[in-house]
């Protein structure tokens, strides 16, 4: 009666989504490499190691924070604070290092601590006060950005004055640190999401919080984890920004949260919860990073920044949704 049906792996939709982001990235890079190829020989200004290093460096500010965003979205929440947290972390690190005279590692740790704090605040608001995450993180965004302005009163901290240009912690030049950190964190958090129970519980919570709770998942702990680590990751972005770019300022990263969320969504996160990919989010941030870099290489390209990025998000997400619907 119940003849066993052929066993087939039907987990394709999620897997392909992660792969499709990588595919988009490769196609995009290839496209620009073609279009920006130098006419009449000469070195390629886009497809060379130095430029790739640049892309990695500037994408990392978004990418590190996008890792946190993808986990939060996977858990069914959302975070509007990353841009403001990046700013506050850069300000705190700058203040402690330049004015307070703290050693660099201590100032950096304090900067990350800022993110732990803001993440904890978001967690308390969402879990204890049951505020919708949109509202809660909107509030955190205002508080952190406001705090950054309060501390700086319009000034900025010039970290580069106190950092020797040849600074190379652990033998890696400062310029490469953002990319290295992003890579390491991608691996770590991808492992957490795919190989640990916590990762599964995060996606369960996002997929159907009620059912997850009934099944015995500790939903409150899951939410606390994603918001606190999301805050810490955004703060780490800010610390990296401050140290590598040499400036701590209250108005940096304005509006970055939208790019960060877009990177996570392009990488496979579903805003209705339950689906997310850390690797995808990082690839998403690279997709936008390649786009920003390439735009700057087109004549008058930078004037189209916002427009092109907006269109790109729409195109990629629509394509992805259509592809997913065909499969199911």
């Amino acid at each position, binding site marked *: 009666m119940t003849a066993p049906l052929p066993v087939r792996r039907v987990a394709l939709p999620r897997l392909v989504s992660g792969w499709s982001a990588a595919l988009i990235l490769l196609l995009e890079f290839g496209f620009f490499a073609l279009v920006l190829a130098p006419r009449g020989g000469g070195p390629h200004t*886009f497809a060379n190691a130095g*430029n790739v290093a640049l892309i990695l460096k*500037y994408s990392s500010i978004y990418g590190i924070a996008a890792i946190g965003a993808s986990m939060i979205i996977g858990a069914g929440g959302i975070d509007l604070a990353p841009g403001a947290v990046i700013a506050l972390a850069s300000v705190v690190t700058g203040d402690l290092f330049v004015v307070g005279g703290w050693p660099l590692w201590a100032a950096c740790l304090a900067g990350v601590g800022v993110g732990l704090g803001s993440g904890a605040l978001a967690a308390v608001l969402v879990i204890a006060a049951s505020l919708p995450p949109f509202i809660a993180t909107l509030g955190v965004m205002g508080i952190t950005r406001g705090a950054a302005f309060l501390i700086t009163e319009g000034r900025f901290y*010039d970290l580069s004055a106190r950092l020797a240009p040849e600074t190379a912690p652990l033998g890696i030049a400062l310029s490469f640190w953002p990319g290295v950190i992003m890579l390491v964190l991608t691996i770590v958090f991808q492992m957490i999401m795919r190989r640990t129970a916590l990762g599964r519980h995060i996606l369960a919570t996002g997929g159907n919080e009620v059912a997850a709770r009934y099944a015995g998942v500790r939903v409150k702990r899951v939410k606390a984890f994603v918001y606190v680590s999301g805050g810490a990751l955004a703060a780490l972005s800010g610390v990296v920004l401050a140290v590598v770019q*040499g400036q701590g*300022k209250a108005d940096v990263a304005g509006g970055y949260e939208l790019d960060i969320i877009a990177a996570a969504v392009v990488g496979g996160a579903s805003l209705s919860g339950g689906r997310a990919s850390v690797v995808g989010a990082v690839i998403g941030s690279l997709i936008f990073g390649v786009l920003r870099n390439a735009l700057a*290489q087109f004549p008058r390209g*930078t004037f189209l920044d916002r427009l092109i990025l907006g269109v790109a998000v729409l195109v990629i997400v629509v394509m992805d949704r259509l592809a997913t619907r065909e499969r199911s």
Partner: protein
Amino acid sequence: MDKLGIVDLKSAIAALMLLAMATGCSRPADGPRKLRFAIIPKALHIPVFDYARTGAERAAQRLGGIDILWRGPETTDEIRQKEILESFIAQRVDGVAISCLNGDLLTDAIDRAVDGGIPVVTFDSDAPKSKRLAFYGVNDIEAGRALGDGLAGLLGGRGRVALITSLGADNLQKRLDGAREALARYPEVHIVETYDIRDDALRVAEVIAVGTQRHPDLDGWLSVGGWPVFMRNALDPIDPAHTKFVAFDTIPPAPDLLRSGKVQLLVGQKYFGWGEESVRLLKAIHDGEQPAEVYHYSGIDVVTRDNVDAYAEQWKRWESGTQD
């Protein structure tokens, strides 16, 4: 007697009346009240305005009897700035000095203030169609020309250059126009690209890096704003031996960059002057002296490595208020 908790009603009313009188009466029993001048920068986070504030407060101290109300939008939010201006009009301050994010947007609010008896002056960024009584600042077109001429001079009148700006602000656009005008007079100078960095400090660094990638043989960069000289590491990709960099604004740490040779020429404004002159003008208007003409061009400071030390000395004097 009715009780509100532990306080009975009559005492409560008495206390409230006392409180109202105390806050309502801001003037002391003797002496004239202080003049309240509102000074509104473009945004609180733009570093150049800090010095304007210092200048304003020193002038207030020197002239006496003046309170400076320093308020501005946190970010370059035009509507928020208009809100702040209107709030000061409602508070009936004695004078307003403002650096306009969008002069046209603020025009009718400024007109209302002036018609209502509140004198308004602008500094740094003007609202030319409005009834403001004076404008103090650089002539942005002249300033742009100085940048352009300065760069062309450094390049010996020949080479490929790139420009950096941020779309939106009127004064930046004027500087850009002035720079282009100046560079146009050198037929062997080619503008390879103009970059819009959306007022994003990180983007400026990225654009300089990518621009250097794209055009490795650039001879010079010209920035109509101070972003690259505030984020020092932004200039790392540039080799000063082959590529010259000129920029606007001379506030610290820009002079350091001149000394280290990363930047060859800076055009500075009279930052302290914005505050000082505005206060002086408003006080004068209050005393019955209308300004003879509207435009008070402050002049610019062109700083190179040769005169950077002298400039730094001068800066110290401005900062401590020992020189106007």
